[in-house]
Every structure is written in structure tokens, then in C-alpha cells.
């Protein structure tokens, strides 16, 4: 916790430097250059197919950059040795679009797995913490359900409980609101703000939902499919009102410029 406070004052949580992303010969985005400050709720936005999910996969090490690098704090994540990378990954949590819960384990076991792997807690303490995390996302009492036996929205919340298991410094979300009803989506937004405030976590979100972009985003980057690079960077509300770029304004105003 102390270390986190120091980092918050001095260096950005994540720096993306000159990043080019490609699938084979197909360059998706080039020359991405931005920073994510500690404590931000950072939104990655852009039209469908522009490479938002792919950028997220790069940030968490599932894809390798074609060029450029990604720094966590002051340390290069891209160039880190595998062992070191594993250590860095322990500081992050990821909520996947579909939840990606381990289907052979109950919800409690899903949350407990990282606790068992990376903490010194004993069995009963782990069970207690797992139950608490599930309660935080409104799933108290569902500890012994299997992922297949709960609804999509519940799976997403359980995925969030798992992502928060180790109280990560940085939480990544891919389309958290997709497939949720408006009220659940709103509750999830509140939960995200709550997490940021209470845990001091930095949050990176990929989303299309304008309502949540404006409600919670403190900073953002806009990826453009046509020019294949970022064409705006700044707080979403500011971009909506003042962006020089026609495409950004249109996106943020639902097509009205």
C-alpha cells in the first residue's frame, strides 16, 4: 500500500510508448503513445473493430507488440523476463468480456484459486475472503454454484470478484456493461468508482457505453479505425465538448456533430 502511494505521486501507472499492434501483416493501430495515471478510470474507446480489445490484450501481456513497449510504473513490461513478468501480473486483475470463469470450479473456488496460489492464508481464511469478495459483488450465498448455473450478468460479477481477489493495483475491464440490463450496468459503474476510491486501484476500461464513459471516465484515449492510430487523448467530457476532431465529437455525441 505504501509503495502504491509513492508511485501515485511520481510516475504513471502505465505508459504506452510508440506501440504498434498487428495481426500478421495486418497493422491494426500504430504509434500509440499515452500514459495512464495512477487512480485514473481510463477509458479505451473507438468504433467497432478498431482494436480496443487487442490493445487490452497487449496491456496484459496476452499479445506481443509488433513495435514499441509498455511500461508498468517505470519498468518495461514488454522487455521483462518471464519470471519478473509473472510478478508484475500479480498486481493486476482482469475482467474478461464473457467472465472467463473456470468452468470446472465453483464460484468460491474461482475466487479462492489466486488467494491459495499467492498468499499465505490458510484454508478457512481463504474461504472467508472468497465469500467476502463474492458478497461485495452481490453474490453472497452463491459460493457453491458452478459458472454454468448462473446468469451472464452474474458470471460477469463473479469474474469481477475473482479479478479483485488479490486487491490488485490495476484492474482491466473488457466491455463490463455489455449484456447487462441498464440498472445492473449502472450498479457496476458505481462499483467501479467505489473500488477506485476504496482500494486506490487504477482502472482501465474498454467500452462503447457512452453513459458509463461520461459517468466514470476520468481520462481516455480514442482509437480510430480509419487512420489506424489514436486521434484523441483526454477526459471524455472534455473531448465531447472541445475536441477538434470531427470523428471523436461525432462518436461521443452519438453521430451529431
Amino acid at each position, binding site marked *: 500500500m505504501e509503495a502504491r502511494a509513492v508511485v501515485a505521486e511520481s510516475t504513471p501507472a502505465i505508459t504506452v510508448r510508440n506501440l504498434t499492434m498487428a495481426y500478421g*501483416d*495486418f*497493422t491494426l493501430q500504430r504509434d500509440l503513445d499515452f500514459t495512464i495515471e495512477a487512480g485514473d478510470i481510463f477509458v479505451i474507446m473507438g468504433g467497432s473493430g478498431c482494436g480496443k480489445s487487442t490493445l487490452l490484450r497487449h496491456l*496484459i*501481456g*496476452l499479445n506481443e507488440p509488433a513495435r514499441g513497449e509498455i511500461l508498468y510504473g517505470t519498468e518495461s513490461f514488454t522487455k521483462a523476463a518471464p519470471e519478473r*513478468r*509473472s*510478478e508484475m*501480473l*500479480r498486481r*493486476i486483475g*482482469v475482467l*474478461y*468480456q*464473457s467472465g*472467463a*470463469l*473456470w*468452468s*470446472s470450479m465453483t464460484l468460491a473456488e474461482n475466487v479462492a*484459486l*489466486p488467494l491459495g*496460489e*499467492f498468499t499465505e492464508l490458510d484454508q478457512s481464511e481463504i474461504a472467508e475472503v472468497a465469500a467476502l469478495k463474492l458478497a461485495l459483488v452481490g453474490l453472497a450465498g452463491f459460493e457453491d454454484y458452478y459458472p454454468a448455473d448462473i446468469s451472464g450478468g452474474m458470471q460477469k460479477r463473479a469474474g469481477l470478484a*475473482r479479478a479483485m481477489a488479490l486487491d490488485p493495483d490495476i484492474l482491466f475491464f473488457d466491455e463490463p456493461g455489455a449484456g447487462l440490463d441498464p440498472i445492473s450496468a449502472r450498479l457496476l459503474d458505481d462499483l467501479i468508482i467505489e473500488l477506485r476510491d476504496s482500494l486506490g486501484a487504477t482502472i482501465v476500461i474498454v467500452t462503447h457505453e457512452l453513459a458509463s464513459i461520461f459517468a466514470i471516465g476520468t481520462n481516455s484515449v480514442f482509437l480510430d*479505425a480509419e487512420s489506424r492510430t489514436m486521434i484523441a487523448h483526454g477526459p471524455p467530457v472534455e473531448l465531447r465538448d472541445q475536441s477538434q476532431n470531427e470523428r471523436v465529437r461525432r462518436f461521443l455525441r452519438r453521430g451529431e456533430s
Partner: protein
Amino acid sequence: MSMAVSSPGELTVTRGVDGTVVVRLAGSWRIESGLPSVAALEGVLADGPTSAISFDSRELGDWDSAVLAFLASACRLARERDIDVDRSGLPEGLRRLLELAEAVPEKDDARTSVIDDAFVQRLGGKAIDTHRLFRSDLDFVGRLVLAMSRAARGKARFRWSDLALLVQQNGFEALPIVTLVTFLLGLILAFVGAIQLQTFGATIYVADLVGVAMVRDMGALITGIIMAGRSGAAFAAQLGSMKVTQEIDALETMAISAMEFLVVPRVVALCLMMPLLTLYGDAMGILGGAFVGVTMLGLSPVEYLLQSADAVSLSHVVGGVFKGSVYGVLIAISGCLRGVQSGRSSSAVGDAATSAVVTSIVAIIVACGVFAFVFYMLGL
């Protein structure tokens, strides 16, 4: 779109004196009865320089995507030849749909090129692919060896309850099918042997034949093939679908190695269970032989079993069991390898399962051949 009686679609393309081409669409154009021919338009355009294309749809009756597809192609042709298109002669609805289809221009490098490569080029491509696949296989095996050595030092992360479950699924639950197949195999071997041996009046040697064949080779081989179909396919499907649902991504971003967490327990489970299943299969095969011996050849059960026990030596048993556990490791590796290499769609998972079975059976047969040679050289 409202004409009740519909005459069949008619397309005429005429060239005016001033170099404009008029495309006249009449009657009813429905997708069931084909598209207006773009070739007709192309033919007229090829005749000479054209300044503009316009449309006459006054007599157009019913229309649907058939006309739309034709118009989209026509507009593309015109664009390629720098010819103006006057769309005012089209019905309102068609004009709007056409605009919608052209709203998002195609990305220049999004389309994957399907070029008919020359044979040599395809051959080279295949060779490079094979090489790449082989390297990724080797890479997998290398990482597995590292993970296994960590496991041997007690440092690998996997859940013992997973291992217990895998042992149950791939050991105990396989008993019925192993029983059936090995018993029948013993039976078949006994019949084949009996026909030959009867001519010498030496039917008792059926016991030797069945016993030695089952224990040395056939028991392990047939159990291996059953398990390749059962466990190899299951492993590939399990890991492949975990890739589709991003469960493997979730493990990796939690710094939990999928190799240690998923692959190691599967390899260990099969490596432990295959020898036991092999022993059990051997016994069932001998029983199958005994069944034929007793019911058809008139031998006494005790006589048959004593003869079998005499024929089979401990080194046969140990050799067979050793082969069985090697086959187990091969099956687990092939299954997990194909699962991990699987793509992110349900059809890719199916391919992975198929490929896992093929790979493990080929691996087993090759290993069986190698063993036969080595054991022969060692005089076993």
C-alpha cells in the same frame, strides 16, 4: 414493391448517342430467380467511352437484394472506370440501401488475399507451416519437461483435487470399455491361434499364444488406442474450449501457468493409470482366451491358466506395463498439445479433438514399432 401480378425481370442496357449508358430495369426481380446480369452492362461499357450511367426503373415491379447486389456491382464498375452514376432514376428505397452499403468503405488490406498460388509456392508455404508447427510442438514439449521437473520438486502449482478427479475419469471410469475390448481381443487371438494349432493337436498352446501376445504387446497397445480415443480427445476438447471461453487467458494473466495447472495433472494422471489399465487389460485378454479354450477347445480352466502362467514371464509383464505408461504419456501430451494449439471457435475445438486422436494413435503405433525393435535387439 407492390405490384400484384409480376412479370419476370427484364434488363436492357442501351447506349445513347451522347455516350451515356441507360440501364433499364423492368418487371419483378426476386433473389430466388437470379440476379440481373452485370456482364451485360460490362459488355456495353467495353464498347466505347462512356460519360455517365443512368437508370430507368419506371417499370420495375417487385425488387429485393437481387437488384441491390446488381446496383452495387454496377457502381463499383463505374467507379473503377471513372464514370459518373446518376442515381435519380432509382426508387427511393434502393437509393438509400445503396448508400448504406457504401457507407463504410472497404479497408484496403482487410481482405485476405486468396490467390491461386503456383504449385511450388504452395509446396513451399506448406513446408514453412509444417516447420512452424513442428517448432511449436517442440516448444510445448520443452516447456512441459520444465513444468514436470518443477512438479517433481513439488513446486508446480496444480490442485490435488483436479488430479484425483482426472485419475478417476481416466482410470476407473475407463474400466468397462477396457474390459469389453481386451476380453474380445483375447477371444479373437484364441480363435486365430486355435485354427492353426488344432492341425497339430496342440490346442493347449493357445494359452501361450494369447498370454504372451496380450502381456507383451497387445494389452498395452489396445488399451492405449482406447485411451487415445477416450482421454486424448477429451483433453483436447477441454483445453480447446477453455481457450474459446478465455479461461486459459485468465490463468495466464493471473501468472498461473496453464502448463502446470492443466497439462501436468493430465500427464501425471495418464502416466499413473495406463500401467494399471494395461495390467487389467492383460488379465481380461487372458480370460477371453480361456473362455474360448474352455468352451470350444475342451481345455480345463485350471489347465489353461497354469499353461498361461508358465508361458508368461515377469519380464514380459514389466515390459508391457512400461510400454503402457509410455503410451499414456504420449496420449496426454498429444491431447493437451492439440488443445492448447486450438483456435478460438467451436469448429476449431472439434478439429483439435480429431487431431489429438490421430496424433496420439500415430505416436502410439510408432512407439510400438520402436519398442518391438529395441526389445528384439535386447533379446527380451
